[in-house]
């Protein structure tokens, strides 16, 4: 019960392919999050599961039943919408009991179930309110109560928190996790907010341009991203990417190089690759006591500082003529570093930084597919490596 399987789901609109050959296997009781940028097809995928959209090709299987041709009401699902979608002409009780009344439950059973659902979302005393008399958070709770009251096999949540203010969103996030623990029902959750995906899910399903990029537990997506898209999308601020190529001694870019044995990784010489490193894996040379295996120092100049309270983000320029670009993660001559908040660094200071070799990612320069996560310990100490270009 409660497992969802997508088999080669494809959804094409006239010119656009919204979902491209999606295969998924979601286990019973799992909390899976679909995450991706706007328009990546995650909502369409969810609508296909819900039955609101018919796939062009492929099969949807819920609880072992092929439901591809069934209307939404017969799929054993319930859904919470981004725009909340409470029926404005009905009070809270009528909203929650809408599905039960359609299914001809007797009045007592309806009352009992509505009471229970309202209790779960802590709205016991508001059953006769109209939606317009409630706050955004309360409305969202009603929508959730409406979803749980029918005991569906699968919950679908389409950006349910997107319209709430930031504080309430964090609160509702916790509530949803508690709800999942309590109900132990499969939840499929759509969001474009990678932080939401990281914090709530058992597994994250990263989608881009209608294609499944990776489906793994949050930390696996974070530590071992399957490609540059996942690496750049998961984690905030984004991972640094530096273009370069494979030489005899390892990776070489315009401004620095990292040595390793290309043969050990089985990559061809001269192949263009992208080196990825997360901001927290860039260290000042003076603060490397926790880094077992570091690269050679890279000299850089600090540009802009962004103190966050618990950490500071520092934009580093790797060359004199580096132009601070809007997208520091993509620029080859910039690095974003995150360091502890009591750092004494100011703007425009020359410093030296090292990277944690264990946390380096290497991606194919063309396809973006991951080649390796973490480099083997360096063997030789070659003096000419690790210098800047100018």
């Amino acid at each position, binding site marked *: 019960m409660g497992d969802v399987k997508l088999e080669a789901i494809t959804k094409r609109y006239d010119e656009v392919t919204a979902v491209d050959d999606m295969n998924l296997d979601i286990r019973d009781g799992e909390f899976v999050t679909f995450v991706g940028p706007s328009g990546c097809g995650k909502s369409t995928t969810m*609508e296909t599961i*819900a*039955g*609101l959209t018919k796939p062009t090709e492929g099969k949807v299987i819920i609880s072992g039943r092929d439901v591809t041709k069934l*209307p*939404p*009401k017969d799929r054993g*699902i*319930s*859904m919470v*919408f*981004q*725009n*909340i*979608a*409470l*029926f*404005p*002409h009905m009070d809270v009780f009528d909203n929650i009991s*809408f*599905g039960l009344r*359609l*299914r001809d439950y007797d009045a007592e059973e309806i009352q009992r179930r509505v009471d229970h659902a309202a209790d779960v979302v802590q709205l016991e005393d508001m059953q006769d309110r109209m*939606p*317009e008399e409630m706050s955004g958070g309360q*409305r969202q709770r009603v929508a959730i109560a*409406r979803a749980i009251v*029918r005991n569906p096999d699968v919950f679908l949540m389409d950006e349910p928190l997107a319209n709430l203010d930031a504080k309430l969103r964090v609160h509702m996030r916790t509530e949803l996790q508690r709800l999942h623990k309590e109900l132990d029902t499969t939840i499929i959750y759509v969001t474009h907010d990678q932080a939401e995906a990281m914090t709530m899910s058992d597994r994250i399903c990263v989608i881009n341009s209608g294609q499944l990029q990776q489906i793994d537990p949050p930390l696996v997506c974070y530590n071992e991203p399957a490609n540059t898209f996942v690496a750049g999308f998961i984690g905030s601020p984004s991972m640094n990417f530096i273009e370069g190529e494979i030489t005899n001694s390892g990776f070489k870019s315009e401004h620095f190089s990292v040595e390793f044995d290309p043969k050990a990784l089985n990559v061809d010489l001269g192949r263009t690759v992208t080196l990825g490193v997360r901001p927290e894996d860039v260290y000042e040379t003076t603060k490397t006591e926790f880094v077992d295996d570091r690269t050679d120092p890279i000299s850089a100049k600090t540009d802009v500082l962004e103190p966050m309270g618990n950490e500071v983000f520092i934009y580093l320029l790797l060359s004199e003529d580096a132009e601070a670009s809007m997208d520091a993660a993509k620029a080859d001559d910039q690095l974003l570093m995150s360091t502890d908040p009591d750092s004494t660094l100011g703007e425009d200071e020359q410093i030296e930084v090292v990277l944690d070799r264990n946390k380096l990612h290497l991606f194919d320069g063309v396809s973006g597919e991951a080649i390796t996560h973490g480099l083997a310990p360096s063997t030789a100490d070659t003096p000419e490596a690790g210098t800047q270009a100018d």
Partner: protein
Amino acid sequence: MSTEYDEIQAVDDEPDIKRGKIEAWAASAIKNPDRTYRAMFYTATIFFLVTTLFPFYWLFMVALTEQRQLQNVGLVPSGFDPSLLAQGDLTMGTNPGVFIEVFTLIPFHRYMFNSFVIATVTTIVVLLVASLAGYVFGRLRFPFKGPLMLLVLVVSFFPPAAFFIPLNRLFNTNIDILRPVLADGSLYNTPYAMIIPFSAIFMPLAIFILTTFYSQIPDGLEDAARIEGTTRLGALFRVIVPLSAPGVATAGVLTFIAVYNEFFFSFLMTDGGADNWAPIVEGLLQYQGQYEVLFNVMAAASIVGVLPVAILVVVAQEKIVSGLTAGALKE
């Protein structure tokens, strides 16, 4: 008008320039256009009200006038004399009994009933079918939607007379399969002969209104209803229609009034007999004999005939207003 006169007085605070009255008024109107706009608003409103309500007033006066005094009805019924009240004549020389005569001379109530039934059934048919069409045009994407909608609207541009002759031939044909339902198998002299063409003629406007309203309902609400367990049709009638109450009321009222007042088809599709589903207007014509026309009874009957529509509009208007305020969709 008094407001204009006030404005002429109000220019006194500009003593430097010597102006004529009209110049002064123009100057103040330029300085303070709000008063002019208000004056124009009242002028237009009063003009409109007088032209629409005065005929009713005059109709009422004609109705109250005795048959023999009809030739000179002014602002009050001829023979109206308040002094008669002192002599114990409560009617003051008028003839309120005419409102009973309306029903005793001919079965006018039957004509009203006919009109009412035809209008109600047509409205129901139109709202049902136009709801389905409005849902499709307003909420679904399909090829040739634009041209199809245009085609529907084009139907409403034809004068109804264009349809008359073919329809009249059709309805006068005896169709065998209808024999069990209708005595001679033809639709002539039955309500169907009016309900069918009226439904068709007034459908495009209703479709147009409902399409506009249904397309405004957020997709999320329909999706939510379908997830909760309705079919598309169920979502239409349980969620979309209730939320579009103002639109449905507007389309319904317009259709009802148009059919209730319809004359052309009604006159030609029946023989005028009350038992043959002839509508109100034919009833009115029954007061016109070969040698005399009972204008006062006609006037009284017209007023009686208008009352149901007037009541309907008042009631529906409240519904429309309440529908508008109860809305509050969040998208």
